[in-house]
């Protein structure tokens, strides 16, 4: 147990800090549309050109081949440097990329990984369906093998940034025989292929990040299957463990900063009676609890990194972190709304620094996406505590 960074790691961190100071863009990040795509990919390219993309990805695919700890340092420093959000690069960097590294063939890796790192492609995720949410393995988007192609028909939903994406990690049903988990295939879909129709869905925060995606006789070469036909469930699960663990480190640092900002805000702001907000006992108690819990979150994140540094793939303990983080982020976001009182009633554009209510609404996604909090609790109960499966 130690917190020390070796001289080598400290030097790495200093290098990161210096580079970020000089290269973080000062203009505001767009939160919607093609401007967002252009901005986010430009930032990804800038990181790649600086040698900071794919820090723990293999060198042969454009990464740096460094340690998970160095990747962690990078994520932390991004948060401290107020660097742009990962935005449209999220799926490529945090899901598709790691999945391809773990499970894809050489040609697939050689083609896609450099494009992801260089900001040449945007990925989206095609997992959820209208009839398959928490019961993901119940998905029914069909793919028939015809010659050397898959012909896909069906529908996906809650697909973030589908209208901005070039590729999709798509789960399809290639067999209806046997266990439902066994008939699933993970395939790379070209989002520009004929037969794909995208309909944006507005979210409760405002901008349309969500989409429905319809597939009408979409032809995908069999060579785009990752991990083999019928093995899609295990391929998808390797993706989800990434999503539940290290990928969120940056959000955790942001939460630490937010608590400090809110504490300062509560000390400055006065209510209509002229009383400082922090002198309201319920506000003080909630702030203190949230600050303490955020410190515990930091500890849990460091422990999770330590665990994952000792093994090749992230484990289910990431769900402990995910449950704690997602619910804490909701409590903190609501606390911010309560500190600013009626200002929380004002419709403000999402992304503005003082859009406290909109930020609160955004956190509702945290306990739904990437496995709802109920599914996370099933995972903890069954896989960590050994409780029997059931309903």
């Amino acid at each position, binding site marked *: 147990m130690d917190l020390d960074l070796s001289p080598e790691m400290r030097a790495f961190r200093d290098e990161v800090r210096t580079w970020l100071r000089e290269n973080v863009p000062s203009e505001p990040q767009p939160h919607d549309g093609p401007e967002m795509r252009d901005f986010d990919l430009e930032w990804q390219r800038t990181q790649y050109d600086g040698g900071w993309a794919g820090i723990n990805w293999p060198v042969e695919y454009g990464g740096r081949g460094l340690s998970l700890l160095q990747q962690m340092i990078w994520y932390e420093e991004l948060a401290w440097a107020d660097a742009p959000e990962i935005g449209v690069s999220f799926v490529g960097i945090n899901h598709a990329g790691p999945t391809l590294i773990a499970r894809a063939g050489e040609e697939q890796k050689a083609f896609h990984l450099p494009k992801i790192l260089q900001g040449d492609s945007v990925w989206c995720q095609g997992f959820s369906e209208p009839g398959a949410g928490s019961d993901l393995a119940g998905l029914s988007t069909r793919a028939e093998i015809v010659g050397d192609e898959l012909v896909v028909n069906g529908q996906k939903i809650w697909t973030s940034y589908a209208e901005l994406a070039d590729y999709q990690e798509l789960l399809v049903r290639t067999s209806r025989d046997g266990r439902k988990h066994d008939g699933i295939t993970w395939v790379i879909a070209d989002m520009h292929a004929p037969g794909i129709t995208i309909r944006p869905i507005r979210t409760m925060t405002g901008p349309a990040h969500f989409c429905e995606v319809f597939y009408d006789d979409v032809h995908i070469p069999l060579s785009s299957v990752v991990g083999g036909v019928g093995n899609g469930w295990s391929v998808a699960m390797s993706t989800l463990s990434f999503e539940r663990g290290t990928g969120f480190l940056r959000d955790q640092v942001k939460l630490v900063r937010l608590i400090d900002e809110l504490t300062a805000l509560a000390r400055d702001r006065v209510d209509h009676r002229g009383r400082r907000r922090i002198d309201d006992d319920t506000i003080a108690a909630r702030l203190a*609890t949230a600050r303490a819990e955020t*410190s*515990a979150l930091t500890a849990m994140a460091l*422990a999770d990194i330590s665990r994952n540094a000792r093994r090749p793939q992230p484990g289910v303990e990431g769900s402990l972190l995910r449950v704690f983080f997602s619910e804490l982020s909701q409590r903190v976001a609501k606390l911010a709304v309560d500190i600013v009182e009626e200002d929380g009633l004002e419709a403000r554009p999402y992304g503005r620094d003082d859009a406290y209510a909109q930020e609160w609404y955004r956190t509702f996604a945290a306990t739904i996406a990437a496995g709802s909090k109920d599914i996370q*609790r099933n995972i903890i*109960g069954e896989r960590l505590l050994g409780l029997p499966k*059931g309903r």
Partner: protein
Amino acid sequence: MDLLPDDQQTAIAEAARDLVAAHSPPSRLHTLDDDAPVTEPTLWRLAAQQGFFGLDVPERFGGAGLSLAEQTLVFHELGRSLAAGPFLGTVVAARLAAVAGDEALLADLVDGRLPVGLADVATEGLYRTFDADDARAYVVVSRDGAAFYDADAVEVVRRRPCVDAASRWAELRVTGQPRISTPPDQFDAVGYGSILISAMLSGICAATRDQSAEYAKVRKQFDLPIGSFQAVKHRCSDNAVRAEAAAQVVTLAALTMEDGRADAGLMWAAARSVTADHALRNCSDNIQNHGGIGYTGEHDAHLFLKRAQVLADLLLTPADVRDAVLDAPEARPA
């Protein structure tokens, strides 16, 4: 950077766990007599032999030369098993003696010859201890620092019965001079003690998590183990989340204090806040998960709750903890 225990640390934790489980399981508390010492003599002797009172004391003073991080592993196990006795006071006193350089005292403490009660501030001029029948000396911890008193330098003013079967509550008045004392800038005794208390609370979080999970696997209703029902399963999962948060924040607090980091003050206060909250909630859930048997006096579930209640009140009240968390400076890790 690695927050998890290494091989040596894992061995220390396992040794402590085995020792406490063998000599002082939680069920022992059902059999303790009122107004009598609570320490299990074999446990105390073997704990001293294994060096558990001086893990973070420098080797030149007879300690193991390790750190508070290792000491928290032992206290986690003491908490898990509801071990009774003046462990907290003795280890706080050892650290105090190490800071003050009192080698003779240290030798007595590390060898277990001098069990020390922990005392905090009760009311004006009075101190409070829960180790009254076992302590042969006291370490008084307050905002003003830490002071060590031999038994003849204090007198018991009043005894009070305690909800916790292993606590021997008394109010003390100081009648003599301290053998040693240090101001808070030399030894942050409140922070140090809080980390040990938090470690015990984190052990209680783990114990109740495990007790509930094991029961949920074997107790059947509607022909199914109750752990297969989400209402129960999810409570058990929440217990696991709270236990993980508690254990990790204790480690982080111990390491930041030993490293003298800028965020040490925030981390020990955070550890107190989180472990107290999580322990009380896990203990409550554990009673609920057990149903009727969990409400009985003969089951262990209530013992955990009551010990957590006492630990959560030591050195700092919940309001003190709240202020300590809010007043701790912002700290970007260096």
